[in-house]
């Protein structure tokens, strides 16, 4: 007879772990108890024969429930107490600052879907049906340990029926904290946009209203969506008007895989991702002709699609005639997605005709995640619901906070060799978003049990709100503060994900503040435990009007052209190639002339090496897009346009020393007589070849085996594929990120990695900012 106390860390709460332990303890004839700890870990005490305890421990590791993950098991022999049974003990707040974490939100499981549509089941057509294997987690958890009273389900005391299932070790809802039924759980109500309740089955009615062409706000798991019939052009058009999104691609939710196959191609990896428990939005290649309205994703060759992930969605589609909904987050551009009922009535009045709201609070906002497969591998555009709060390993044990950048923000906490990136925060230039970020930071600190920080890391940009907030927090908390250059962080995120010692990285991006005060975004960088060095970059070109050049890329085009042509020649070139671009400026010709003067006299002109702006500029030159209504628009449309190109025109982007002369490619493009799609195609290839070849050359020079790519342009299929081929053809290893977002949504991971290099004395603060 032996007794052991076992401390398990990992994802062991909210995943059916205790019932699992209960079961295997019984199977091996052991006595004792299992309980949740306040650090998200689990404590087990077992008594019995040594042999049985060993097989118990083997099963503990090998037969885990699907969502559980064990990071560490600590076992200590204790005196035998003589338990008479094995039971689940009440949770206790104890535990250490361990390595455990709650799981992400999990989409409804097959068993629950089956019950949902079983007329004899108590939870027939009940949208909040869950079990130990599925349902909301991150979005409803207020604190640890994971018990009902620490979730937003605390307002819904269980009925006898639910409680009997909850307490039955053989039931699949045994200790499923959000368990509920129509008698005791949350419920939906349907309202008009002035708050009047509509009588009748709210979900059925909502489905009918959507079929009739109305826009309905639907409260779900991590926030509120605006939903409408995605097959109707007039309705989608109306939604665009109301949400002030003239161009941004709308994500759609399709009833099932068969429906998706009617309008988009699905590869095997894409299928796996679409149907995973995360249920993200996956951008798929549209079929041609595209049977749905073109305005769902104007000018793009892809469409973002997701499958139903909550009971609500299944029920809506059950009643609905249309098998595809637009499901876009309910907010005006740049603002946080609305998640609370009160706010919904205030803020969605003008956007939604009806509101389908439930009475369970959403504690932690989580937008739908967005994923794209680039060159056959997963690239995460937005990492949120379903991913968060899972961690990414880094080889540094410090406790730190990495703030991310400004747009597409997510922050990350680093602790015991892991970084925990937050949910999608958004555009932090808005005070409302920054408020959300502050709350989310506090929440993460709480659930990660982080009391004292060693370091706060922010971007180098002096006017990012996140930089300022980081400084304030560092001051207040008396924590060391570090700023790191934006593109160093992008490349560091590749090192972090693959645990590399050194890399030659290609940072292709929109805009980041450079160590020289210029605006970077087309960089080849050496990064290792010894040094960081910018080896090559796109030759600076002027951006007349600064940020205006992001919104009106004609400005970027004129800036780049001014590197090879005289100011007086610009007018003629624009007139010849893209006269409509001038008309797209808010003040047309007058403004065009102002821009010429700005270039001539350097009035409010900044200098940039951004790859994003180069692609934007081609988008204008080739008359693909003149405006940026959403992040990345001109470059994304250029890529879609280039997909139709077939011939490589053999453009070259020469390098002179460390300068990559993109302006030469513009000259070649202006002199060639070819189909615009071929020009677009060739531009991508030429740019990628140039970056790829320089990176390979530098890697050989430095004796580095790894070449990586990151930044917002690393979502570009043509560029990534071309670079990868060059790297591999030279016998080097090619990397990008497949877990960490490649754009600014993932920069916190790179920041945290650099923070580790800094704290451990490998790199100095000057290395990272000068």
């Amino acid at each position, binding site marked *: 007879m032996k007794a052991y106390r076992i401390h398990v860390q990992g994802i062991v709460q909210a995943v059916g772990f205790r019932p699992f332990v209960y079961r295997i303890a019984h199977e091996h004839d052991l006595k004792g108890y299992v309980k949740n700890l306040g650090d998200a870990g689990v404590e087990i005490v077992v008594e019995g024969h040594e042999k049985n305890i060993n097989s118990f421990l083997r099963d503990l590791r090998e037969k885990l429930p699907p969502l559980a993950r064990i990071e560490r098991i600590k076992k200590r022999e204790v005196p035998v107490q003589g338990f008479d049974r094995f039971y689940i003990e009440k949770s206790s707040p104890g535990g250490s600052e361990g390595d455990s974490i709650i799981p992400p939100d999990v989409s409804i499981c097959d068993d629950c879907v089956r019950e949902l549509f079983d007329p004899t089941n108590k939870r027939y057509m009940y949208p909040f049906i869950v079990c130990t294997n599925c349902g909301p987690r991150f979005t409803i958890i207020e604190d640890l340990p994971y018990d009902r009273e620490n979730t937003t389900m605390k307002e819904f005391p269980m009925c006898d029926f639910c409680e009997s299932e909850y307490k039955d070790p053989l039931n699949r809802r045994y200790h499923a904290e959000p368990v509920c039924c129509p008698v005791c759980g949350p419920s939906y109500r349907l309202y008009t946009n002035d708050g009047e309740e509509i009588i009748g089955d709210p979900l059925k009615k909502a489905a009918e209203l959507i079929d009739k062409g109305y826009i309905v706000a639907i409260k779900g798991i991590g926030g509120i969506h605006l939903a409408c019939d995605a097959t109707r052009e007039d309705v989608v058009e109306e939604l665009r008007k109301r949400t*002030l999104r003239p161009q941004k691609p709308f994500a759609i939710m399709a009833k099932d895989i068969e429906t998706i196959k009617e309008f988009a191609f699905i590869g095997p990896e894409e299928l796996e991702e679409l149907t995973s428990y995360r249920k993200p939005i996956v951008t798929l290649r549209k079929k041609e002709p595209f049977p749905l309205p073109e305005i769902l994703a104007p000018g793009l060759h892809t469409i973002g699609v997701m499958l139903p992930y909550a009971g609500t969605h299944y029920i809506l589609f059950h009643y609905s005639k249309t098998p595809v909904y637009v499901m876009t987050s309910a907010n*005006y*551009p*740049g*603002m946080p997605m609305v998640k609370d009922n009160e706010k919904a009535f205030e803020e969605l009045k003008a956007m939604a005709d009806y509101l389908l709201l439930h009475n369970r609070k959403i504690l932690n906002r989580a937008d739908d995640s967005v994923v794209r497969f680039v060159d056959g591998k997963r690239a995460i555009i937005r990492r949120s619901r379903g991913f968060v709060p899972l961690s990414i390993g880094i080889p540094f044990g410090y406790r730190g906070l990495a703030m991310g*950048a*400004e*747009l*597409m923000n997510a922050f990350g906490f680093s602790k015991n060799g892991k970084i925990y990136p937050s949910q999608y925060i958004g555009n932090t*230039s*808005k*005070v*409302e*978003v920054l408020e959300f970020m502050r709350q989310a930071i506090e929440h993460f600190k709480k659930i990660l049990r982080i009391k004292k920080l060693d370091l706060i890391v922010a971007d180098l*940009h*002096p*006017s*990012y*709100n996140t930089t300022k907030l980081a400084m304030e927090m560092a001051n207040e908390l008396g924590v060391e503060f570090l700023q790191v250059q934006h593109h160093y962080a992008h490349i560091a995120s590749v090192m972090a994900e693959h645990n590399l010692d050194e890399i030659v990285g290609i940072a292709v*991006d*929109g*805009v*980041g*503040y450079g160590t020289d*005060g210029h*605006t970077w975004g087309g960089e080849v960088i050496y990064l290792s435990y010894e040094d960081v060095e910018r080896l090559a970059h796109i030759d600076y070109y002027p*951006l*007349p*009007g*600064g*940020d*205006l*050049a*992001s*919104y009106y890329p004609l400005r970027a085009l004129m800036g780049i052209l001014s590197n090879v042509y005289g100011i007086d020649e610009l007018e003629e070139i624009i007139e010849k190639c893209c006269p409509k671009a001038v008309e797209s400026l*808010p*003040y047309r010709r*007058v*403004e065009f*002339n*102002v*821009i010429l*003067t*700005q270039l001539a*006299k350097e*009035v*409010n002109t*900044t200098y*940039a090496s951004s790859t*994003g702006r180069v692609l934007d500029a081609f988008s204008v030159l080739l008359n693909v897009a003149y405006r940026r209504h959403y*992040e990345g628009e001109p470059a994304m449309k250029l890529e879609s346009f280039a997909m139709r190109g077939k011939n490589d025109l053999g453009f070259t982007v020469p390098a002179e020393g460390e300068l990559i002369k993109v302006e030469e490619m513009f000259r070649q493009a202006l002199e060639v007589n070819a189909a615009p799609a071929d020009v677009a195609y060739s531009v991508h290839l030429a740019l990628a070849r140039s970056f790829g070849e320089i990176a390979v050359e530098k890697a050989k020079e430095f004796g580095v085996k790894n070449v990586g790519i990151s930044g*917002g342009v690393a979502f570009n299929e043509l560029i990534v594929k071309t670079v990868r081929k060059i790297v591999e053809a030279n016998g080097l290893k090619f990397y990008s990120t497949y877990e960490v977002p490649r*754009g*600014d949504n993932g920069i916190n991971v790179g920041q945290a990695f650099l923070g580790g290099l800094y704290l451990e004395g490998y790199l100095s603060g000057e290395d990272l900012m000068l």
Partner: protein
Amino acid sequence: MKIKLEHGAGGEIMEELLRDVILKNLSLNSAGGIGLDALDDGATIPFGDKHVVFTIDGHTVRPIFFPGGDIGRLAISGTVNDLAVMGAQPIALANSMIIGEGFDGEDFIKILRSMDETAKEVPVPIVTGDTKVVEDDIGIFVITAGIGIAERPISDAGAKVGDVVLVSGTIGDHGIALMGHREGIAFETELKSDVAPVWEVVKSVADAIGWENIHAMKDPTRGGLSNALNEMARKANVGILIREADVPIKPEVRAASEMLGISPFDVANEGKVVMIVPKEHAEDALEAMRKTEKGRNAAIIGEVIEDYRGKVLVETGIGGKRFLEPPAGDPVPRVC
């Protein structure tokens, strides 16, 4: 340290120079009232039951003649306005001119006449002066000092939570007009500087609601409205929330600033006053401003709030709120 242009641009970098260099080296800096260390628009010296207010301003504007004014009008207005926003009636001015060798005599006379005219507008006499000629090709610098008498000096640090923020007219006129003119940018309409003395506007409000009800005042010159509001928020340790749509801006100034990519909030005004008054006096103050010629476009633009102490927020309707930062010298792109 080397002095850079940004050290005089009215932004954060200038603030650092003032605090870390100038104030650290000039230690005897108060005459019993508001002194140098307050970095206010002027100093106050208690005198019987009133206060002498004393201020000085150097003018180096280029070009010397610009649409809507010239360096002479600017030199008078600048100093008169610094007195006015301290709540002081201008009593007398001193005028120092530093002239580069070879400066055109006609232009010199034009400048003096313009000074005279502007001074009469207030009215305030120019009672003493100093003239220097130097070899360096500087054109002309005009430095004016002024004294005024205030019953009750008004600092820029008196804002209270719940107060209302007013501005006496359109914003950005001077800065944008000057930039357009200087760089030879052809906008559709020619822009004009707003350079003018604002004593009349200030006095009108004081007559209407009493000096004691003007909690804080500032002329939004260098660094523009952004800088003025930030200083007022920081010094009073309050938050300020303004509504973008309520800030008066001439359409042609808005257009020009949108074409240049420069915010009209960030550039100088030379004939405006920002005033913070208790809510119950806001409408009267507004009416009093609007009665005057120079205040006819006055508007209530926001309020003083409890949250975000030391910061200024702009409400942009459905676009949400953003921080209005004091301009930091060169603009840096941030839109990825």
